[in-house]
């Protein structure tokens, strides 16, 4: 029955989406606002049916209804409640259902937000495009990825989710966050297409979608960071980012979206880069589909790939239509897209954003090329090649450092042009902070060029942020005689986009420092220990105390008790383990991590202890990993601040009267410092 309800809901959802598409299309072409309004209302009906379908799936999971193949494959009676609920995104069909739910949610939210402009052709076109995308995902669920396929024989118990997906509570958050990010880019994409279709290619569509873009970007950022965290806590190889195709697939749209949220400011402010911004938004959307194709069609080897499915050719066809159609639209509108503005000086905010975009585009290209290169090599020459971490590290490090440099310097540049004197006033002290940071790290013994540069640029960037915030707060205090806290809050609230952006930058700096430290410092050993034997790694001593065995219906877990000491102080007993699940033939290792502010001790059980007297354990001392997650949190917080911008349904972000070239905050003490431009 659940299968019937679920499938019916999907079928009706498909029908509503199709009806919505037909209504809006006819309304647009015949100039019938009533039909457009009908189509718009259908968006909410699509959402309702999607909620019913998801509800049916969750109900089936919770009641262990193994007559549905998806439930039988991804759930078992012994599966704990949390992982029963997360079973919705444990595999392909459920993920598509989640995708459809989130998409319908975004569409309904957008339809609600623009309710007063429902018949505005740009909004109508955007709704049309969004519904077409939704229609595609519904068609997937009716066709090759039907989550409600009923099996003829009902097993007594299900296979249970992939062991890696039922090992850590982060699994409950990472995929939905990622999807909230991925799917959210459908909205700016549909407005971009709407702008092209209506010929209103000015700045209006940017204003309409800026906040949604930022929301999607924030979720994607959080999703990626949570994924890295999950990888670190669960996979047990000691790292958090392996440049695995699935990871790259999530990074690619993030890179183009990051480029976009910088370059859109150039268009808002100066009217330039119209084609480029449209291309970035379209590329971001295409990359989310490409990523789904790469990871869900079984063309690539990957840790988390759900392989084998007819879905591959569907996704590829859809991608082809989207990319081809978008390029054709841009070519058609080429004349209208000619930018009215121009760049006055290479030492200006807009020129810095061009550099930023070049760097992000280059990084996206490198990641894309490296990810698909094995496929291309096989297609072109039948050769099997691997492209992995050493390639990506070699290519991404210089680009990443260039981005870090721009991030440190660009906020000090004003629009149009900045004089050398202003530049010196704003940058000299931060630059010296950066230079001296480099000196200190080298004197302290660091001999990795990339790390020294990263630390130096981090110092430069942080000092720059501190300086601009400090100047702003001081000016406000002097003007209004306020306390520090109130002045700081009001400074931030005077321009949430700017200060939110700076907070995000601080998060990025923290992550950059953590990455450089992780790559440079730390120690790693793999040792065989007799019971009672100890080994020294770094400043820590690890002693093997004994083993434990725990059997539950879900899994059998063997663990080794390891005592961790430093300088004679016992830090605790840790128990890395290996679990065997009934549905997998090799064991899944679970690391045990002592998290420290500056150093983690990462303990793994390398071989399943067949006899309790001897084990092989991996001991790694990892530097500053905690700061990756802290940096991620800071980025999320900054995104939220940036979203606090004064709410208006039609934000009128247009070029303000060109005052004297203003940086983030002008140094001249004035009662109200000229609100400067955002750097989000």
């Amino acid at each position, binding site marked *: 029955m659940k299968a019937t309800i679920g499938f019916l809901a999907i079928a009706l959802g498909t029908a509503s989406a199709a009806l919505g598409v037909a209504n809006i299309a006819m309304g647009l072409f015949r100039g019938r606002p009533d039909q457009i309004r009908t189509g718009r209302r259908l968006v909410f009906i699509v959402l309702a049916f999607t909620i019913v379908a998801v509800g049916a799936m969750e109900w089936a999971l919770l009641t262990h209804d193994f007559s549905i193949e998806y439930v039988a494959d991804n759930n078992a009676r012994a599966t704990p409640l949390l992982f029963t609920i997360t079973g919705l995104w444990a595999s392909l069909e459920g993920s598509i259902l989640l995708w459809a739910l989130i998409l319908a949610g975004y569409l309904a939210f957008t339809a609600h937000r623009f309710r007063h402009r429902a018949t505005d052709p740009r909004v109508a076109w955007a709704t049309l495009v969004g519904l077409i995308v939704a229609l595609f995902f519904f068609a997937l669920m009716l066709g090759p990825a039907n989550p409600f396929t009923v099996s003829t024989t009902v097993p007594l118990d299900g296979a249970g989710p992939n062991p890696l997906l039922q090992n850590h509570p982060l699994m409950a958050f990472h995929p939905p966050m990622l999807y909230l990010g991925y799917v959210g880019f459908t909205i700016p994409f549909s407005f971009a297409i709407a702008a092209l279709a209506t010929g*209103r290619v*000015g700045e209006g569509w940017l204003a309409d979608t800026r906040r949604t873009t930022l929301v999607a970007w924030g979720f994607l950022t959080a999703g990626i960071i949570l994924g890295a965290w999950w990888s670190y806590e669960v996979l*047990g*190889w*000691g*790292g958090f980012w*392996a*440049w*695995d*195709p699935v990871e790259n697939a999530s990074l690619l749209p993030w890179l183009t979206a990051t480029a976009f949220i910088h370059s859109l400011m150039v268009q808002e402010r100066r*009217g330039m880069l119209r084609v480029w911004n449209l291309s970035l938004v379209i590329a971001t959307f295409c990359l989310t589909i490409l990523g789904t194709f790469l990871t869900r069609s079984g063309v690539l*080897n*990957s*840790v988390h790939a759900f392989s084998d499915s007819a879905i591959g050719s569907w996704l590829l066809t859809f991608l082809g239509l989207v990319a081809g159609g978008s390029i054709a639209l841009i070519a058609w509108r080429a004349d*209208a897209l000619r930018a*009215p503005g121009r*760049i*006055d000086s*290479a030492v200006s905010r807009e020129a810095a954003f*061009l550099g930023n975009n*070049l760097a992000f585009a*280059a990084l996206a*290209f490198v990641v894309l*090329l490296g990810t698909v*290169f094995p496929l291309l090599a096989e297609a*072109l020459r039948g*050769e*099997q*090649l*691997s*492209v*992995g*971490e*050493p*390639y990506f590290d*070699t*290519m991404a490090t210089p680009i990443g450092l260039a981005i870090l440099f721009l991030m440190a310097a660009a906020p000090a540049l004003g629009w149009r042009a900045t004089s*050398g*004197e202003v530049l*010196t*006033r704003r940058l*000299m002290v931060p630059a010296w902070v950066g*230079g*001296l940071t*480099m*000196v200190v*790290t*080298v004197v302290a013994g*660091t*001999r*990795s*060029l990339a790390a020294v*540069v990263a630390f*130096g640029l981090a110092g430069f960037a942080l000092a720059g942020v501190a300086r601009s915030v400090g100047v702003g707060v001081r000016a406000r205090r002097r003007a209004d005689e306020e306390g520090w806290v109130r002045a700081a809050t009001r400074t931030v609230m005077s321009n949430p986009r700017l200060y939110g952006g700076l907070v995000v930058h601080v998060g990025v700096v923290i992550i950059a420092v953590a990455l450089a430290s992780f790559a440079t410092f730390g120690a790693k050993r793999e040792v065989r220990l007799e019971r009672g034997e100890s080994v020294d790694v770094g400043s820590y001593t690890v002693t093997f105390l004994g083993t434990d065995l725990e059997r539950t219906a879900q899994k059998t877990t063997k663990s080794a008790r390891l005592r961790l000491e430093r300088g004679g102080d016992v830090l605790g007993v840790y128990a890395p383990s290996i679990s065997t699940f009934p549905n997998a033939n090799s064991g899944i290792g679970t690391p045990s991590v002592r998290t420290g502010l500056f150093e983690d001790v990462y303990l793994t059980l*390398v071989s399943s202890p067949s006899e309790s007297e001897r084990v092989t354990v*991996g001991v790694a001392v990892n530097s500053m990993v905690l700061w990756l997650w802290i940096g991620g949190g800071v980025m999320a917080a900054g995104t939220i601040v940036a979203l606090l911008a004064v709410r208006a349904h039609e934000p009128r972000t247009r*070029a*303000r*009267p*060109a005052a004297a070239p203003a940086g983030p905050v002008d140094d001249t003490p004035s009662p109200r410092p000229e609100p400067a431009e955002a750097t989000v």
Partner: protein
Amino acid sequence: MNPRARNGSWIALGLVVIVTLWVAARPEPGTPSVRDRVRSVSSELRCVDCQSQSVAVSSTSSARAFRADIRRRIEAGESNAEIRRAYVETYGEFILLKPAGSGLGVFLWALPVVVVLMGAGGVALVLARSRRQPRLTATEDDEALVADAREHP
């Protein structure tokens, strides 16, 4: 700050940075230890029964076997390049996580450089073209007009 002090300060900073980088980039004295060599060779080999990890970080038994084999070969006097070549003979290019810059690998290494150069060229062109155009000074009214026209073409 007067212009001369300003320039002096920038030059001094430049010198400090260059000297620091030069010191940081100098290779560490002495020959690398066997352990360091095992790490550097193994980090560029694909762990054959994992997915995207290198032999250096994986803890599967095959990765451990590879590390032991690399150590044995180093102790037998093979160079890093010889060890890599031996594995490529058995496993093919597949085993290298960083494809060689020959054959198809050329594209992998050269294309990003080409793209960056083209992009940089494009940016330079935009800047140069802007500079050649006569500079117009727009009044506030002009700006408002333009903005309005952009919003409602």
